[in-house]
């Protein structure tokens, strides 16, 4: 099982180590550093590295490498999933997951890690339970602790761990009972030169924030559940009920959690809400090229597109760009050759455009590669797949909760080839 964990910053310093079995010398990380050196960018460090006696599995999040050391045959996905859980827990505990924050809370981090694994076997990975065992630090608690001399370690038994609903703690009480659900969809798409779609798919999630007293039992039904044929559920969802009735029935964890994630890949169901018109050309003879892009709405079901940003990695030969946007601000970084244009909201009457010239290094030949345009945008109050929640009911408790559903569509990896 998982032997040890090292946290390494981008400068290559190990700033935390935790061992769940015997101690593994930190020199094992030298193999990781080698791989890090070979990879041009941090993102490209291979996630599985073998060394003569160990395997190093790593994830890179928030500019920190989480490197797990294993010695025997362990499912790598198990390890990687666990590392993600560690990152999520830190974020949950401290609001952000960064080197200074981890250093500031090193003892809590250590205690939490100790609770998450026992001898390399996962013990408590639900943040609900962890928070019961080890209270997250807050300014108030720190003050209270100093005054009263009490500690941030809970002294009751983590009751949830024994119940049939291990994800929910008992005795939850709220004065305002509320349940919010966010349906968030991200479109991943590749659009080719001519504007036709190469691939398009939707990654959707329903994130919930449930603050309800007692043991509420919720059901959530959809207008069009047939859209969801490829779904992954939070363990609280009763799978049988979904299979037979297409209804989500569950006792929710307390607080924030991801109820389900789904995937819509049928091309005909994926509407492409924006288009990009582009004209980027370099001439063989001159060192000047033309650059022009326009962004416009396509299938938006009447909603407006906001928060649009366009970015593109220009070829290495590009020296500078002289561009004028019709709206928003743009920037070209001559070192990384990254062009970014913060467009803002698209006004369908007056489409935003960016136009101008590109100058190449003197004597450089016409670039071989075509820049790819990367698009970010947001559409409020719309789930682009058309998914709609029908109703939400609560059983098991007497009070009337406040309910809310929000929809949003975002660009995921939305790429336009030129």
């Amino acid at each position, binding site marked *: 099982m998982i032997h040890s964990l090292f946290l390494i910053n981008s400068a290559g310093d190990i700033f935390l180590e935790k061992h769940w079995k015997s101690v593994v010398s930190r020199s094992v990380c030298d193999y990781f550093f080698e791989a890090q050196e070979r990879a041009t960018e941090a993102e490209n460090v291979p996630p599985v590295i073998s060394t003569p006696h160990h395997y190093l599995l790593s994830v*890179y999040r928030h500019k920190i490498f989480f490197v797990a050391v294993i010695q025997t045959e362990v499912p790598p996905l198990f390890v990687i999933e666990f590392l993600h859980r560690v990152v999520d827990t830190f974020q949950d505990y401290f609001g952000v997951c960064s080197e200074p924050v981890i250093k500031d809370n090193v003892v809590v981090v250590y205690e939490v890690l100790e609770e998450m694994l*026992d001898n390399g076997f996962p013990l408590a990975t639900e943040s609900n339970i962890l928070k019961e065992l080890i209270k997250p630090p807050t300014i108030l608690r720190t003050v209270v602790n100093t005054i009263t001399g009490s500690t941030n370690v809970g002294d009751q*038994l983590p009751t949830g761990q024994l119940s049939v609903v291990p994800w929910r703690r008992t005795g939850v009480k709220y004065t305002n009972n509320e349940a919010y659900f966010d349906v968030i969809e991200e479109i991943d798409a590749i659009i080719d030169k001519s504007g036709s779609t190469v691939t398009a798919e939707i990654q959707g999630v329903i994130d919930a924030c449930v603050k309800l007293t007692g043991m509420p039992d919720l059901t959530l039904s959809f207008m069009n559940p047939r859209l969801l044929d490829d779904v992954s559920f939070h363990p609280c969802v009763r799978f049988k009920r979904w299979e037979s009735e297409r209804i989500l029935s569950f006792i929710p964890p307390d607080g924030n959690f991801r109820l389900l994630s789904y995937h819509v890949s049928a091309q005909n169901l994926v509407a492409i809400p924006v288009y990009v018109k582009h004209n980027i050309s370099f001439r063989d003879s001159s060192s000047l090229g033309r650059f022009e892009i326009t962004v416009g709405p396509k299938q938006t079901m009447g909603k407006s597109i906001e928060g649009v940003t366009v970015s593109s990695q220009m070829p290495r030969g590009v020296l500078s760009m002289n561009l004028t946007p019709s709206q928003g601000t743009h920037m070209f970084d001559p070192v990384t050759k990254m062009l970014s244009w913060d467009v803002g909201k698209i006004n369908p009457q007056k489409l935003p455009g960016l136009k101008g010239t590109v100058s190449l290094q003197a004597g450089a030949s016409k670039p071989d590669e075509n820049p790819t345009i990367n698009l970010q945008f947001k559409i409020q109050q719309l789930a682009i797949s058309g998914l709609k929640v029908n109703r939400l009911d609560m059983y098991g408790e007497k009070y009337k909760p406040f309910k809310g559903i929000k929809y949003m569509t975002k660009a995921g990896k939305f790429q336009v080839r030129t």
Partner: protein
Amino acid sequence: MTDSKYFTTTKKGEIFELKAELNSDKKEKKKEAVKKVIASMTVGKDVSALFPDVVNCMQTDNLELKKLVYLYLMNYAKSQPDMAIMAVNTFVKDCEDPNPLIRALAVRTMGCIRVDKITEYLCEPLRKCLKDEDPYVRKTAAVCVAKLHDINAQLVEDQGFLDTLKDLISDSNPMVVANAVAALSEIAESHPSSNLLDLNPQSINKLLTALNECTEWGQIFILDCLANYTPKDDREAQSICERVTPRLSHANSAVVLSAVKVLMKFMEMLSKDLDYYGTLLKKLAPPLVTLLSAEPELQYVALRNINLIVQKRPEILKHEMKVFFVKYNDPIYVKLEKLDIMIRLASQANIAQVLAELKEYATEVDVDFVRKAVRAIGRCAIKVEQSAERCVSTLLDLIQTKVNYVVQEAIVVIKDIFRKYPNKYESVIATLCENLDSLDEPEARAAMIWIVGEYAERIDNADELLESFLEGFHDESTQVQLQLLTAIVKLFLKKPTETQELVQQVLSLATQDSDNPDLRDRGYIYWRLLSTDPVAAKEVVLAEKPLISEETDLIEPTLLDELICYIGTLASVYHKPPSAFVEGGRGVVHKSLPPRTTSSESTESPETAPAGAPPGEQLDVIPTQGDLLGDLLNLDLGPPVSGPPLATSSVQMGAVDLLGSGLDSLIGASNFVSPPAAAVPANLGAPMGSGLSDLFDLTSGVGTLSGSYVAPKAVWLPAMKAKGLEISGTFTRQVGSISMDLQLTNKALQVMTDFAIQFNRNSFGLAPAAPLQVHAPLSPNQTVEISLPLNTVGSVMKMEPLNNLQVAVKNNIDVFYFSTLYPLHILFVEDGKMDRQMFLATWKDIPNENEAQFQIRDCPLNAEAVSSRLQSSNIFTIAKRNVEGQDMLYQSLKLTNGIWVLAELRIQPGNPSFMDLELSLKCRAPEVSQHVYQAYETILKN
């Protein structure tokens, strides 16, 4: 106030200060001090000197302080074993605490203290905790057994903890079950033979119940454990699959992949005809696709596994090509894996799309990726034959971009395309040659040189091109040097006259001026070959190369099957069995996919169906494919026939001093670039070098028939090619014996004697049953008729076409080779009548893809006549039916090697006096069908 303050006291005497604080009376101060100690520990500072002081803090009611001390203990107990014993008492006491949390914490921590001396004190508390009333304590204790086993395996066995652990698999609490399974799996890994997890249907049922209720991690352990079970029949496999399938919708990707493993493994046991099998296939695709939208690290592991799944069951993801398209900001390790899978999924249906993508990738920035994309285009060409042309033109487009590394990569793959499709795309050579100067990588240079050498006869200036490479011979890498050596030798063998100087030059460079043993050896071998036996040299150097195919980069099937059992593990990421890389290879049991077994009630099980021909038998027809040429030349013409052994026809040059007079012999050697037959002076006008091709000259064999009708003899060996000996002949079959009727005519001016005959190995093992009896010498213009009895006990080698027979005939003048095609019906045996029931069962049993359909037009016979005519050639009519005015005949026949052929013959009246016949043949060795059909036609039309 944050914990970072603990890092700030780095001044001198830090340890001393901490010591004082730890021994302070104030609780708060103590705790702060322990926190400081822990903080130092986390960053790797050595604070072991404080051991006794920290342990003193352990006796406390404060849970946090207790936990902190435990943290410290676990870290340092190993280095201070004697001190650690001090802590034992507290542990034992804590194991009795009324609070289960404390009990669990104590037993958990105790297991983490890796000190031998402590372990014996641990046993009693652990035993109690394993039977604790609280499941939280039990599940913690289960893991503790694994910890203890790691420290002292013998102790665990002696104390009987393993049995207690096994009992916990039946625990009422799913978390306890999951942890027990996890602990047992870990222990089993170091004890491969212990059979700890011996699973039976009852325990499987318990596990499946626990599966639904335990945590995600527990589900992984249970699924991995289930995967090791072998269900007793397909029903059990199906019921397990049904209960595992919901796991495919889990949010945890490790659970999903473990479930995929179980399903992939058990699916092997399900019959493909089952509806459920199809349902399962459909259910597997979406979760695999979903894994690809996860974080890149998860994607990587998933992709490595999908790579295996796609090879094992391509049908699962065949419609999902698009999800493997590469996004430009994917990490490189994801990009390369996606590319690999794209090629595996490429088929005629989607090749256009794939190629368009690959071409797009070839213009990306990342050089490694671009190279791999170009290679992928080449692999597509090799995999999908119909796309080869398109791939080649895409590659040519890419070469036009003149981007250096793209051009080089393209040339490397074009070489492979040439090997797969010889003589098809040579028109592009000119374009390749234009880019000769830009090649600077050894692999590309070597590939280009190979192309020039291989097609030397089509490239006018091949010698100049190779010569230009030769100038910098010593600066080239070994790969290029070797290739250059071979290419020039090829060129020499093809154009001996103009290139003698070049070949001498390269041989001397390779043998005399090089330090590389490989190069020198290859040089000597060529040199010696060329100087002693140029014919052999030609055969060796210009030998036909084995075709390359897509399979070259597939994982070998047995390994693939093993790896399927390891889906989701490191083995699947490395595509190696665990035995190949797990530390020390200990504890590795080879896993294999379960065989398909059907429950006994099932009526369609293969065992109950009568086997027409045992499966092994059909293999006889297809033994290893040998080199035709080599086999024929190895024929031993002496012993079975009388007469003196023949002198080898090629001229022996004798041993030549390689370094001395070698060059002379090389020059002389060019005379001998001609085959043995032609090397003899009395060559009757055969063009130089044509002797070899005669072997494959199949003009003479014409189908004849047996029984009532024997085809007129055809000329098999014209006098022109055999120095005056003309041979014509035919095949007959009479009352169970096959014979070859030969007519030998001497058209030369000298008397012929000492005849002998030999057959090359052939598809059905035909061989002469007696020597060739020519009693008197054959005078000029004399003809003799001989019937040569044959049997089918000779050695077997599959020929192309199947009924090809290569014959060597010898006389006092020379050895002559010819080949002929024998009609297949001479091989139909007399007992080829199949029982009616057997016929029906066998017909069903042979898969439909083995069925072949043929038309026989204008047959002058009616059903009766057809039946009797066929009967005389041992094709037996088993049943006859009349359907809508058409006669249907069901027939069977058996070949000498035991292969059954089943036929359905539909006779439809065509024009008044002729019938049109429709023949359906089913056979376990479908390659014979075509020839059986020809036999039918021959028999019926004559």
